[in-house]
């Protein structure tokens, strides 16, 4: 795993600044960007997966019961899933300080 931006020094970089670890952007959690989060109503959800297809972050995953749930560590809260859901099963609720 590459070092975080704070602890990175010049010596950690490869020649030509080549990044050799595929997909290590996962260590950067974009979830802190959001002001609203999607919540799925499991009674309305028909497990079609449209939210998974339309998610620009690719952060929606299917769980072992077949429901598509958003990973809040990466979800930026755009609301596309809630807008496109044909069953209107997803609602966006405000993020609140805990």
């Amino acid at each position: 795993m590459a070092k975080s931006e704070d602890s990175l020094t010049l010596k950690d970089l490869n020649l030509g600044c080549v990044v050799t670890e595929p997909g290590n952007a996962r260590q950067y959690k974009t979830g802190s960007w959001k002001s609203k989060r999607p919540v799925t109503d499991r009674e309305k959800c028909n497990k079609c997966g449209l939210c998974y297809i339309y998610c620009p972050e690719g952060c929606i995953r299917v769980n072992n019961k077949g429901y598509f749930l958003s990973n809040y560590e990466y979800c930026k809260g755009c609301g596309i899933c809630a807008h496109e859901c044909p069953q209107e099963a997803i609602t966006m609720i405000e993020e609140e300080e805990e």
Partner: protein
Amino acid sequence: MEQKLQKQPKIFSKVPPEEYFVSGHRGCVGCGEALAVRLVCKALGPNVIIANATGCMEVVSSQLPNTAWGVPWIHTLFENTAAVASGIECGLKVLRKKGRYSNENTIVAAMAGDGGTADIGMQALSGALERGHRFVYICFDNEAYMNTGIQRSSTTPFGASTTTSPAGKKSIGQLTWKKDLPSIAIAHNIPYVATASPSYPFDLINKVKKATTMKGPSYLHVFSVCPTGWRSAPELAIELGRLAVKTGIFPLYEVENGVYKINHEPSKLDPVKDYLKLQGRFRHLSDDTIKEIEKRVNSNFIELKRKMMCDDMRVV
């Protein structure tokens, strides 16, 4: 729509499950281009080398020391994306001849934004298409230089307000019409040219897969909604792409070996106002200007239909 989905709920299984453009990229909230890249990468699969021009997708996906790409990826300049892709293709050919590279099916893909394709990278693209390299060129069209702060490009549509074509008392914004890039690609007589939109994901995936099977260059023009630059709500990114197709502003068609085919042909085009009113960049337009845009969009669509009908007659 709802009933159809309930009968056949597993539509997600039509989309390849692997992610090659992963979470954690720094794209804006509701970025239509990030979605387009994600779907295109799913369709291209793991056996690919991507040359990516400078632009939004390069900036958001490759902030050192991170990369959002799960496949071999090289950053190129604005002007030489197609040249780098043709170099990769030739290099692989030579390595195969020398017996140092055995994989026969590696796809070479070039990705660029509309600025890198229509303005700065035009001559490299034209050269690569003319030389007939076997590669897929994908243009992600968000209709301005969004990465540097919404400057007009030659694919910015008529009437759009950008920072270098601002709307005000003496101007209505962009004064020229959108450059027709797919037609320029078609004029090179290449095997496959198509337009696609992430709002129609299965159509997009099928077109990318088809493009990779061609024996020569193929060009894909992908409509990418940009909520930041278009001043629209982030949740409307998919809706706007769909409206652009329904109103005829961005028709979905493909041209295979010179034969036109419209993939989504509405029986009657929706009024363009439905599409324009959702975006802040068109907010200043008067009804007369909107009528003028509608007239132009309709005549373009009729022209496209005429081309398709000519091809139908030729086949008969």
